[in-house]
């Protein structure tokens, strides 16, 4: 293998160099800006995590699994997984192998970083070696892999259902340019390498193709324009990259270490939020995931459009999208790159200027009697009284002495304020409740409403107090033999409440309780894919008619299991579902109360 062009340069590499330089400069600028936007503590945490061997290893593993192999996509749909990983990993291998070729055959050129990309243009094959043909074979092989991915991507444009996606995001103009440039890169590379294969050598793909073309192309005049075209589309792709969804390629490499460092979203636009906005690949998985998309009018309120509008700075739409969301968390649970749609929305609500501020400072604090176990039912369990009564009755049967701290009215846990972006108001409620709970001297706080439970877990500091959802507590009582369950003839399907399942990761204990007191069936979409009941307090602007559609969709999913009745572990889900359900909806506490001695 010899260097064919003495200067090691041809003007056709200029578009590529321009694009590459631009992307590099932009990414460095963005990286510095984002790091400066982080708070001092977060920045310190981030840098420390980079040198921690454990997180560093996790970062590398995650980058390979998520960015190159797209393991999550494979699990979701193998065809979708193959399409993404073939392009990502194939392209990665082409770049790596290109560098190996340069190091092996023309080591003096390694400082020219366009060389690995356009290697086949600059070299001539002097002698055939095993080493050379193996590398050429691998180059052709990975090019074929990428081309197969591109072909699938083209099919996906017209037939997304084959890839398990009912709906995809509508591409914006800049995304369309990026998409067509990306599609053009690899066929042009194939053509360019084919045309020079008789000079630089080729393998099973470029070799025979070169022979075919040479049968009717009389001269070599066409190969330089093809390399030009290849370089130009690369340049175009890189120039639009920072403004298109393809920004997710570099951004994800920053998001992964930030996530592993344990950073949280703290600002409406800056820092981690900006990284997540950049990382959104506009795949549109969140559109099918979103319970609101049962109504066509709400499709443009999914997370993919939120990130797009934040990039555009369209304040009106950002506000609309942020307010409408139920905060059910399903888009976040299914997101391939980990964009935290609900958290980003809450931050948008928090920067709004509310003209009226609620003042809770003069609300009296209830005296809570001293007790080891304190029960907090929350507003929703008061509005759905069967839940509170059943929890109390079950605890009594198990011989647990309990003090019901808000039986005659109590204070809100603060989560509705928090999700509405009224952080200060939420904080004052948290302070009052904390005072009440700590004064009781309790070591266990049993909570029946998943909304309150999540609030207690995430936003309260209660030293020495174990906060537990009643489903977990009852499960422990059964295991300890303090509660004896008998099985009824009914078959229940369990509806996962958003805040309990996706919010707090409690999926198994409620199922175990239902399974011990009745037959249990599963719906198609359960656990982290469960559909919000539509009653969520998270949405500030959904109308009741729109909510009704969501409720009916959630019910259809539950009906498909052919169960006689629906079980859930959230008073709000119970109230919402039972309004439109054709079969009984019961809280697990009620079922346990009926089936226990």
């Amino acid at each position: 293998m010899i260097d064919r062009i003495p200067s090691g340069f041809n003007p056709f590499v200029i578009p590529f160099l321009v694009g590459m330089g631009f992307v590099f400069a932009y990414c460095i600028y963005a990286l510095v800006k984002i790091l400066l936007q982080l708070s001092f503590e977060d920045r310190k945490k981030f840098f420390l995590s980079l040198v921690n061997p454990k997180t560093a290893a996790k970062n590398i593993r995650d980058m390979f699994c998520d960015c190159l192999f797209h393991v999550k996509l494979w699990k979701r749909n193998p065809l979708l997984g193959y399409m993404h990983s073939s392009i990502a990993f194939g392209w990665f291998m082409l770049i790596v192998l290109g560098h190996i070729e340069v190091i092996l055959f023309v080591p003096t050129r390694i400082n020219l970083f366009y060389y690995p990309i356009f290697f086949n243009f600059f070299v001539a094959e002097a002698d055939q070696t095993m080493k050379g043909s193996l590398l050429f074979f691998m180059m052709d092989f990975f090019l074929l892999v990428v081309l197969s991915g591109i072909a699938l991507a083209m099919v996906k444009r017209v037939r997304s259902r084959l890839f398990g996606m009912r709906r995809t995001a509508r591409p914006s103009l800049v995304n369309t340019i990026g998409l067509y440039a990306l599609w053009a890169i690899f066929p042009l590379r194939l053509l360019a390498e084919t045309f020079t294969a008789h000079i630089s050598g080729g393998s099973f793909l470029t070799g025979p193709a070169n022979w075919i073309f040479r049968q009717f192309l009389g001269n070599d005049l066409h190969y330089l324009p093809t390399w030009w075209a290849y370089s130009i589309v690369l340049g175009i792709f890189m120039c639009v990259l920072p403004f298109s969804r393809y920004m997710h390629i570099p951004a994800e490499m920053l998001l992964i270490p930030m996530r592993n460092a344990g950073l949280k979203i703290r600002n409406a636009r800056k820092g981690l939020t900006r990284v997540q906005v950049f990382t959104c690949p506009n795949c549109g998985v969140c559109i099918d995931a979103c319970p609101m998309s049962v109504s066509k009018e709400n499709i443009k309120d999914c997370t993919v459009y939120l990130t797009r509008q934040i990039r555009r700075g369209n304040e009106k739409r950002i506000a609309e999208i942020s307010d409408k969301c139920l905060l059910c968390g399903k888009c976040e649970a299914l997101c391939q790159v980990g964009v935290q749609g609900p958290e980003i929305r809450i931050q948008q609500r928090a920067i709004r200027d509310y003209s009226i501020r609620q003042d809770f400072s003069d609300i009296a604090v209830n005296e809570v009697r001293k007790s080891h176990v304190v029960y907090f039912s929350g507003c929703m369990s008061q509005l759905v009284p069967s839940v509170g009564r059943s929890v109390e009755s079950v605890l009594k049967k198990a011989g647990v002495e309990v003090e019901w701290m808000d039986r005659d009215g109590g204070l809100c846990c603060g989560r509705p304020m928090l999700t509405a972006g009224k952080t200060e108001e939420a904080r004052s409620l948290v302070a009052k409740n904390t005072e009440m709970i700590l004064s009781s001297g309790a070591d266990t706080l049993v909570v029946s409403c998943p909304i309150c439970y999540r609030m207690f877990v995430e936003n309260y500091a209660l030293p020495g107090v174990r906060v537990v959802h009643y489903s977990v507590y009852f499960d422990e009582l059964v295991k300890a033999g303090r509660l004896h369950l008998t099985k009824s003839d009914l078959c229940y399907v369990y509806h996962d409440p958003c805040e309990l399942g996706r919010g707090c990761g409690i999926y198994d204990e409620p199922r175990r309780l239902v399974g011990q007191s009745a037959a249990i069936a599963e719906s198609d979409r359960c656990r982290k894919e469960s559909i919000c009941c539509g009653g969520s307090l998270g949405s500030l602007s959904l109308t009741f008619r729109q909510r009704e559609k969501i409720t009916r969709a959630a019910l259809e999913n539950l009906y498909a299991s052919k169960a006689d009745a629906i079980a859930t572990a959230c008073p709000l889900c119970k109230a919402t579902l039972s309004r439109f359900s054709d079969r009984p909806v019961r809280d697990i506490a009620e079922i346990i109360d009926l089936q226990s001695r």
Partner: protein
Amino acid sequence: MKNIVIIGGGVAGMEAARQLLALGYTPIIVEKANALGGHVASWYRLFPDMTPASEIISRLKKEIAPANVFTGTKVISISREKGDYSLTLDNGVSILAGAVLFATGFKVFDASKKEEYGYGVYDRVITNRDLEAWLSGGEDKRISAPKAIGFVHCVGSRDLKAGNSQCSKVCCTTAIKQAIEMKEKFPKAEIYCFYMDLRLFGKKYEDFYINAQRDFGVHFIRGRVSEVGETIDGRLQVKAEDTLSGKPLKVQVDNLVLMSGMVCNQSVSELVRQARLDIDDDGFLRSRNNIFDILESNRPGIFYAGACTGTKTVPETLAEARAAALEIHNYLQNG
């Protein structure tokens, strides 16, 4: 002469049958319950003159004796056949009808769906219908010498959360009537009505309301009930807001009566689908026009009367039934 089938044997169906008999037809009434009379038959007295409901029902029953009546029978299919309708009943009878009258009425809202009011959870929470049954002489252990009684207006009516935006029209005045009746039975009891606003649109309804305040001392509190709890001795604690004084309040009562509203009758939805009739947003049948053609459906030969197209009082229903009989007569004469 062509057959006329009336689906539903409540006051609408019976009154239409009575008028059709007077016009010389012999209509066929198909009623799914075992007796004629519908919701009105389960009522004790009717506002504003305290007319016994049984008086209306027995009079109607007597006058429609010549009609063909199938009780305990449902229409299981309906289809268009050359300008006529072919109906099949679940007793095996099939009828070819020149005109069909839907007098399928409404359903009473299931109050247990508003669990915050405690129906089905707390023993002493009852509905307007439970109270009528008790007033008619039925047994009800839940009611025993109450010292205080609360009435909650608009349960499942004007409530988008419950999926019903419509006003049920009759509950305001029914609550006043029942409050007076309870006061007559238990003169020492305190009676509270919790309302959003009072819609007393009909003749003598306003007088009836003033009467309840002045002569019976019923307390009217403007504000919705937020939640209901139970005290240790089994009484009910009602939390509400008095929006006139702007203060939250708590009242203990022995019985709480929920004024369950009228909602669409979904049990006819299969029939409606077969006949290809239009449904309104509120689930009730859609009239061709809400001013001029209230009694006409989107299909020729199918007519409506009464609460199947929306909530109505008894006199309104009777008036519609009479008009529907005339519409059917004109249709058969000209058609």
